[in-house]
Structure formats: C-alpha cells, structure tokens
C-alpha cells in the first residue's frame, strides 16, 4: 500500500510544540480534513506533545520524536519520548497511572484532561512503553474517503 512518512525531532521543551502544531495543521488541511477535524488533530497533537515534554525527559536536548504516516485511509501520528523525567523513575504512563488519571478526572480539576482529549478526538489511540524507557503514543485520524498518496 502506498504511504508517505514524515519524521520530526524537537527539543523536549514546550516552546517547540507550537511550530509543530502549526505544521501538522497545515499537513492535515492539505490532506483534505475538514476545518473542525484539523482543529481536533492539532489539539490532540498539542496534548500528546505536552505530556511528552513535561513528563518524558529532563534533558531538553534529548528530544521528542514525531513520526507521521499518510496512507490512502488515514493520517497516523506517533509521538515518542525517551524516558522518565527523573533518573530511576519508570516511564510516565504506566497502566496504574493511566487508570488513576482516568478515575480522578473531573471538569473542575486543573489537570488530567489531556489523555481524555486524545481518546475522545482520535479515531484510534494506543499508548505503550518503548524500548528507550519512555512512552509511545500513537493516534490515527481516518479520511472520510480513501485518497491517493502524494509521493
């Protein structure tokens, strides 16, 4: 199946999330997603990258990797951080922690909404530990109808 891959790596710092959000917004728009869906994709990306930057690595130079894959049916985005913010800690998104975040989420809480947004707005999501000791978050946004892949 035809597919196109785009890879980016940003320093693990919040400053770089905004330009990536703009890039992904332009990409999604070029792929024909509706304006509403482009906003959803940008929000999901922002939430994932924020978690990766704030919980994923203490060293800004280590970076966060983004892999985007476009095929005839969907845009898939993988965000990979490279490990715990503090030496000796496990990756930030353990099964227990995910359950705790979901159980405690409340509209009146200041934090803990990011993963809920990711789950709510993506067509498919997957979160799991990676070999680097960090977390991989993969989300898929399907096209409303199949499209050719520009290569």
């Amino acid at each position, binding site marked *: 199946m035809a597919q196109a891959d785009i890879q980016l790596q940003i320093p693990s710092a*919040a*400053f770089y*999330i*905004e330009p990536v*959000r703009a890039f992904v917004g332009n990409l999604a728009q070029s792929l024909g997603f509706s304006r*509403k869906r482009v*906003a959803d994709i*940008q*929000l999901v990306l*922002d*939430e994932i*990258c*924020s978690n990766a*930057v*704030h919980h994923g690595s203490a060293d800004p130079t280590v970076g966060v990797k983004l892999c985007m894959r476009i095929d005839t049916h969907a845009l898939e985005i993988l965000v990979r951080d490279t490990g715990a913010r503090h030496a000796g800690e496990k990756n930030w998104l353990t099964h227990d922690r995910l359950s705790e975040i979901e159980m405690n989420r*409340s*509209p*009146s*809480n*200041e*934090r803990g*909404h*990011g993963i*809920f*947004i990711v789950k*709510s*707005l993506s067509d498919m999501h997957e979160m799991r530990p990676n070999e680097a000791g960090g977390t991989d978050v993969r989300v898929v946004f399907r096209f409303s109808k199949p499209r050719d892949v520009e290569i």
Partner: protein
Amino acid sequence: MDSTKLMKLREESGIKIIEIKTDLSSYAASDLRKVLEGLLAEKVEKVVVNLSQVSHINSTAVGALVGVAKRLRQSGGDLKICALADNLTRTFNLIGASSVVEIYESENSALAAF
C-alpha cells in the same frame, strides 16, 4: 519568546480584562497561568478573559482558567470568559469546563454579568 506581551491587561469599572492575542498551546498556557497568578497576587477579584483572537486552546490553559475562577470565587470574585471560537467552545464542552466557568458571547455581556 515571552507570550505575556500578547496578553493585554486593561480595566473597566473595577473589572480586569485580559485580551489574549496568541494561541494557547503549552508554552503560552504557562504564561497565561503567570498572568493570572499575578492578578491573584494583586488581590484582583473580578476578571474577564477575552479569547476573541485565540484560535486554539489546550487543556493546560483551560485548567489554568478553571483553577483561577475557583480561587476567585472563594474570595467573592469570579473569572468569566468571552468570545470563544466554535472549536474553543467544543474544547471547553469536551472537558466539561463550561459547567465550571461562565462563558459569554461578548466582552460586554461578560462585564454586565458581574
């Protein structure tokens, strides 16, 4: 870059108005929190946040607004939000924050609600 420069503060009838002229992703959300914390430190009680020039907001920024609204209410004040684009309204509704913070169509209606 310091995005607090894109958060203009003014006052009308004793109500502080923050007009935000930048999208609120993670970096700017942190600056928004600083601006709001500054108002709390000044003992400001009534705040309107005008989001008419904002096309994106993430959960960190929504959380900052919710947190400050709750703290202001404890001292008899409040924080109200106005002029949200459709996608911002959807984000507030999705999180459930629209049931916690009062949202108005225009700055004038938010000011009048105090």
